[in-house]
């Protein structure tokens, strides 16, 4: 492993999204964002819904929408395990916007608890998707098993 770089792995049930060395990665934990660089102390964290930022050589190395899951961090490796992870170009912005509107409507109706929870989750997903897809598409690193 090259000095000063950290190995980032992102896996979902359907593919391995990312498997390469990066300079820094910013994760959205449930308690807030955390930047991880090589030599980080070991840590396990639940992830929230949010973008994951990759930074390579001081510049932006791409963003990935992560919908929950968990991360295991060691001094040389970050493993992100999530049910859903998407690159910006894979996100259908119009669909995300429609989902946001639908979820907002449902939240206003306030029918019963189960529906409210689901609507809230889908609203959060839609917001993350819209945020991630608004960034320019930057792709770095190998991502085996790429494509849908």
């Amino acid at each position: 492993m090259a000095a000063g770089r950290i190995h980032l792995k992102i896996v979902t049930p359907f593919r391995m999204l990312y498997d390469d060395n990066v300079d820094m990665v910013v994760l959205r934990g449930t308690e807030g964002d955390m930047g991880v660089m090589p030599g980080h102390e070991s840590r396990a964290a639940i992830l929230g819904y949010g973008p994951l930022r990759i930074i390579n050589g001081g510049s932006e190395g791409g963003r990935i929408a992560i919908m929950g899951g968990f991360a295991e961090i060691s001094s040389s490796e970050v493993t992100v395990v999530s049910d859903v992870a998407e690159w910006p170009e894979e996100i259908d912005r119009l669909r995300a916007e429609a989902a946001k509107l639908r979820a907002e409507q449902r939240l206003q109706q306030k029918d019963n608890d189960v529906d409210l929870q689901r609507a809230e989750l889908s609203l959060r997903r839609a917001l993350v998707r819209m945020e991630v897809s608004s960034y320019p598409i930057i792709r770095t690193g190998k991502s085996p098993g790429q494509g849908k």
Partner: protein
Amino acid sequence: MATMRSIKRRIRSVGSTQQITRAMNLVAASKLAKARASLESARPFCLETESSVKRIAAAASPNNPYFKAGQNRKLAIIVITGDRGLCGGYNVNASKAGYSLIKDGEGDLVISVGVKGRDYFRRRRRKIIRSYSGVSEMPFYEDAYEIGMVAMDLFKDGEVGEVHLVYTKFLSTMTHETSSKRLLPIESGGGGVMDFEPSEDDLLTYLVPKYISTVIYGAMLESSACEQSARMTGMDSATKNSVDLINSLSLQYNRARQDAITAELTEIVSGANAL
């Protein structure tokens, strides 16, 4: 010696069996391709989850209830088999491996996935607490989650002290390995220092159900690939056997035909001589 007619009838019957086995071979081959594809795309996910959780459990404090075997000595055994037969020793091997875990007189519980495993344990009068059918061929994560929750509830309520999982590992099309592992309690201790966010308890409460269902999901995918490839190889050799059988039967048939002709000729000749 068999008569010509009965040999002919056997050839025809073996031939139609051969058509069935050949068709089953082809169907299994295409199902295997599908099962392998989903296994291969999910394998990294399952392996990463498993190894991460193991490292996290090693660093966590051993007092968490998920890490301690219950007072109850009973086991819950999840056995994954197929719904259908004609796939060599696949179902029997997995069922036997599960059966060997059962201790006599302890009232161990079985959670069966697949009709064949259910029937196996039912015949042996073992207590099946829950059985699932129709999920082994094309496993979904939701099914694995449901099975996992049943097992976790049994463990949490103290109905059982340990939960084991028996499945068949897919090494290659030709080699499968029946294996079993303990799902609960999760092995803990062994060192390592780790920070937990938000807190150790919250993290484990979130992670353990996910871990259990992911491991079950992976095992179901492995097993389904094994089932299809076992059926494929089984049906392939059955087709080959029937080819051999037809060859030897045709030889018998031709011999019988020759004999009949010879006998007829001798009759005619001796009849002519007698005149």
